[in-house]
């Protein structure tokens, strides 16, 4: 087993070191660095135009960084591109499928491109809930079905690295949940997952760590919990019925030294009805750190 550069574990499945990329004179990615371990899900968060898709194109070998280095599974992507592309799975933001081909034909085609000879398309389609529609042409698929087929396509080669660009964007809750389940399964079997999204709730629920990217730069990289604790504000909303029958709602900040006293004071002066705690959201943290929202 190889040692990582920092000596804390195995070599990261994805290692991005000081990567830069420009479209002509317009810089899109400026000095981004991060690692993703095997079995880890990293949420890559940022608004449109932040540099997420450009970073993904560099990770998948479509673009070559102007500066910096990308390693996948311990090997330099620049020199082992084809071999590494055989070990990664990619799900694009746009539904780039062939309308005239069926789900099964899609999977067989991409299996051939990966050199997979023992593909069971039925089993793979069953994992994403498409087992009954595998023979149908994609032209007749709903948006959710297409997205699930995209995920299945990304899994034809049992990838060790899974790169997903907005995998549940615009999906109904059932389809989105199905896709999240598959992503978790992949992480549990040791696959490194990089997922871009601007859905903070999804990132919070799915990602072990999140990275904030804005204007081509990485602003933060940590677990959602630590980011919220470090940069967010917790509060409690206390509802009290006064003696005259009116209901008061009081917001008490939970951070600070005299938190207990403030909370106690908020509950006096009437009948305590409810106490709701409000945790800081990732979106609030993102706004605080970058000065802008995610959409």
């Amino acid at each position, binding site marked *: 087993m190889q040692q990582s550069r920092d000596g804390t574990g195995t070599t990261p499945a994805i290692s991005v070191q000081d990567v830069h990329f420009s479209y002509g004179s317009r810089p899109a990615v400026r000095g981004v660095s991060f690692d993703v371990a095997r079995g880890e899900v990293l949420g890559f968060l940022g608004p449109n135009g932040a540099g997420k898709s450009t970073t993904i194109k560099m990770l998948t070998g479509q673009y070559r960084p102007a500066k910096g280095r990308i390693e996948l599974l311990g090997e330099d992507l620049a020199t082992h591109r*084809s071999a590494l592309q*055989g*070990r990664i799975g990619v799900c694009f933001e746009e539904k780039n499928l062939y309308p005239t081909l069926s789900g099964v034909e899609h999977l067989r*085609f991409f299996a051939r*491109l990966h*050199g997979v000879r023992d593909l069971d398309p039925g089993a793979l389609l069953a994992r994403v809930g498409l087992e009954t529609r595998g023979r149908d042409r994609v032209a007749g698929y709903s948006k959710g079905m297409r997205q699930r087929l995209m995920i299945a396509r990304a899994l034809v080669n049992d990838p060790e690295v899974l790169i997903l660009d907005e995998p549940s964007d615009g999906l109904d809750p059932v389809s989105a949940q199905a896709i999240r389940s598959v992503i978790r399964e992949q992480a549990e079997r040791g696959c490194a997952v990089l997922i871009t999204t601007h859905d903070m709730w999804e990132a919070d629920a799915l990602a072990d760590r999140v990275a904030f990217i804005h204007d081509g730069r990485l602003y933060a990289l940590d677990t959602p919990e630590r980011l919220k604790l470090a940069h967010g504000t917790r509060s409690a909303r206390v509802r009290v019925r006064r003696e005259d029958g009116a209901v008061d709602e009081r917001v008490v900040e939970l951070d600070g030294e005299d938190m207990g006293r403030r909370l106690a004071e908020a509950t006096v002066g009437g009948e305590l009805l409810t106490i709701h705690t409000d945790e800081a959201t990732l979106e609030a943290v993102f706004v605080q750190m970058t000065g802008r929202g995610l959409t």
Partner: protein
Amino acid sequence: MSRPLPSRAALVAAIVRKDLLEFSRDRLWVALTTVALVMFAVVFWLMPDRVDETIRVGVAPASLASVLGQLALEGAEIGLDVVGFESEEALRAAVMGGGEDGPSVQVGLALPDAFVLRVATRQDVVVRVYVGVTVPIEVRGAMTSVARELAFVLSGAAFPVTLEGGDVIVLGEDRAGDQLPLRERVRPLLVFFVLITESLALASLISAEVASRTLSAIVVTPARITDLLTAKGLTGALLAFSQGLLLLLITRSLVGDVPALLVAMLLGSVLVSGIALLTGSSGRDFMGTLFLGVAFLIPLMIPAIALLFPGSASAWVQVLPSYGVLQALVGAASYGRGVVELAPYLVSAAAWAAAVFALGWWALARKVATA
């Protein structure tokens, strides 16, 4: 664990297989291809399969027709079919179309009754030459010469000029008496049209892939852009070549020098595939691709159309990319010339096919790289 990467050939084969499957599912192009094949085959069979180089000449009075007929026999390649008429009015009617029962002629020579005597005594003779409106200008001129020659023959006086070789000197291949029938002339044109139809089909497939970004999904697998482009080129050449071959079989035109014919068609297929790569990577949608495709292909059809009207092609037509292919197609299919004999045309066709294919390759590679 990493598995062995598929070979380049396996990758290209997988993409070609997928492309052909997509093509077979595209109702529009399958229908267009079928209609084109049927239509071109019908056009081919409707074309006349022989050439009538004979000019029907009417002579009044009828007594002089035998003299002119004798003159025609002496120079058989002239192809004069002489018909005698009793009166100038009957001759005019024949030139106008002949009426219900009377014969029709293309040219009429109305000679005076005392034509022979007047010519023999060197007196002035007035001859009227009638021609139908459809008679080409060169035939009109020839008929006045025939009238003069007739006078000279009858009077016993010859031209005071000696023509070397006894006739005109033809520069290039003299096809007098051996002209290609229209069916023969239209054959390469139809084959080329089939190739063009298939190139538009491929261009449409490529532009759809560019628009839907499915190409990106391929290039993040072990397949390289070169595999993708090779596969597209192969698909295009395969589609065009097979359809062209099918047309040749349907029209029983796999004749002449078959190896040279197949080589010419293969080069034509590569040429149109290159154009398909170029237009497919540039077109944004179906109509845009179609418009671009037609814009590119019209100049290529000029040498094909020129084959229908020999002598109409200007020198610049010879530098068009399709000229070599078409000349090789005609040479192989109609005149049975072999690869060696057609080498100049085949080399020119190969050079153009390589250049256009390289240009298309570059355009699509650029499109994929920046998608």
